[in-house]
């Protein structure tokens, strides 16, 4: 007896074709974006561009200040967010005994992860720029709040994989809680911290809306400490200003190419570190 096919049946084999098409589209899109940005941007990338500051007098465009500002803001953000995020994760997995409190903290972290950057920009402006002035420091502190959930979540995932038997072994020898955490737990959650850092750096490099009103868009090359207290544009903000307000598309594409290369590098780094830890855990 032959089964009669259901009316939906003819559509079903199409699934294979359609998903292949969609995947092809996604792949083409990515290739196009990478190729287009690099083709348009790399010709404009010169040593002069990356080693000088812009000058209205000589009508020169230089992105050295933006490069430096990006570096400074990334370092400063990590410096603050790492202890906060790792500490919060340690509290959640090692200390928190109340489920409701832990739930509230995790919910808060999720909420932070979902808030759009423009809102961070506004709140950062109210909280930090109004007190510290529009400055890289105000921008970095805003980014600290934005990246807190990333560091927290990745560290937490990693802490969960530290075997309970390590903790028991250390407690059984009479070690106090803090010593157990410091010597046996934390050294074994390195993977999560590293992954969190890589993801955060990616996010910091790509962020713009949260920085417009907190860090501002000045193009002066400063040393680290001066820069922290002065306004300054990061690469993304500079791209926006050059493209949207000054029509300097060459510079904008050059920055876009740098950002693209950084995004590719971060992706590679994430893959390599995952492989590294996989191999280390296997041995």
């Amino acid at each position, binding site marked *: 007896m032959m089964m009669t096919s259901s009316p939906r049946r003819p559509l079903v084999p199409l699934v294979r074709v359609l998903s292949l098409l969609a995947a092809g589209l996604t792949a083409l899109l990515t290739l196009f974006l990478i190729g287009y940005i690099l083709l348009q941007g790399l010709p404009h990338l010169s040593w002069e561009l990356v080693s000088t500051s812009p000058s209205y007098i000589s009508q020169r465009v230089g992105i050295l200040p933006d490069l430096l500002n990006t570096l400074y803001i990334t370092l400063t953000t990590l410096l603050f967010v790492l202890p906060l995020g790792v500490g919060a994760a340690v509290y959640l997995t090692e200390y928190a005994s109340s489920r409701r409190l832990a739930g509230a903290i995790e919910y808060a972290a999720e909420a932070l992860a979902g808030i759009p950057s423009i809102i961070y920009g506004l709140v950062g402006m109210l909280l930090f720029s109004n007190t510290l002035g529009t400055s890289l420091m105000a921008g970095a502190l805003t980014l600290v709040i934005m990246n807190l959930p990333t560091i927290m979540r990745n560290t937490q995932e990693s802490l969960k994989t530290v075997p309970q038997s390590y903790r*028991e072994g250390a*407690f059984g*020898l009479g070690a106090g809680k803090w010593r157990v955490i410091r010597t046996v737990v934390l050294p074994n959650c390195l993977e999560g911290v590293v992954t969190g850092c890589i993801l955060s750096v990616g996010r910091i490099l790509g962020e713009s809306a949260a920085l417009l009103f907190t860090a501002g868009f000045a193009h002066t090359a400063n040393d680290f400490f001066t820069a922290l207290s002065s306004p300054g544009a990061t690469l993304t903000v500079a791209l926006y200003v050059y493209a949207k307000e000054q029509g300097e598309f060459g510079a904008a594409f050059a920055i876009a190419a740098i950002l693209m290369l950084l995004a590719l590098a971060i992706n590679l780094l994430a893959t390599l570190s995952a492989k590294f830890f996989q191999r280390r855990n296997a041995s």
Partner: protein
Amino acid sequence: MNQPVITVQDLNLWYGQSQALRSVSIQIPDRAITALIGPSGCGKSTFLKTLDRMNDLIPSVRVEGQVLYQGQDIFQTDVNQLRREIGMVFQKPNPFPMSIYDNVAYGPRTHGTRDKKTLDQLVERALRDAAIWDEVKDRLKKNALSLSGGQQQRLCIARALAVQPRVLLMDEPTSALDPISTSRIEDLVLSLKEHYAIVMVTHNMQQALRVSDQTAFFLLGELIEFGETGTLFSQPRDKRTEDYITGRFG
């Protein structure tokens, strides 16, 4: 019977609502091996973990009754000091993911020994006492996880010995090991009883018979019978003990 090092009186323990130990009273003799036997879930491991307060790590546990270690109430003393004097060896070998040397030195360092020479001596003695020195003396800096399962367990015993405890608690220390490693650990345990009080949970009745001086039989959270090992196995007083050791339930 030797002087008791631990005296337990009327110990009750609950995990949340369910009672895991019911008015257990027992005296653990010094410089002797006490085996705890009974079917799984009978409370023997729970009882063992109460002696060095490892149950503190579980939030829902509630304890009533008295446990005296050398005359002192263990629930009133500093828990870290208590665990220093009452060491523990776990069912599955659990060396830390660090070097062999650092594993053994972990305890002494925890309790404040920093001097390199003293540490070297402590580590060597503990490894010798645990009968593993000859196998590892040339690779003390190697990761402890590279050792075999049996070696890992002897390393864990060395790690416990390095803090110079009085009592050694062992929770089925050979259940994860092959027969050869098992017999090495048994020999080691026998040699250790000259200096330590040893309490060992075991599933293996031959093992209890081979190594222990006293045996305690637990069933459903109760201590049914406690006595000299040979007597308990040859002439059990309680019907339930007899049923268990003759294999009628398990």
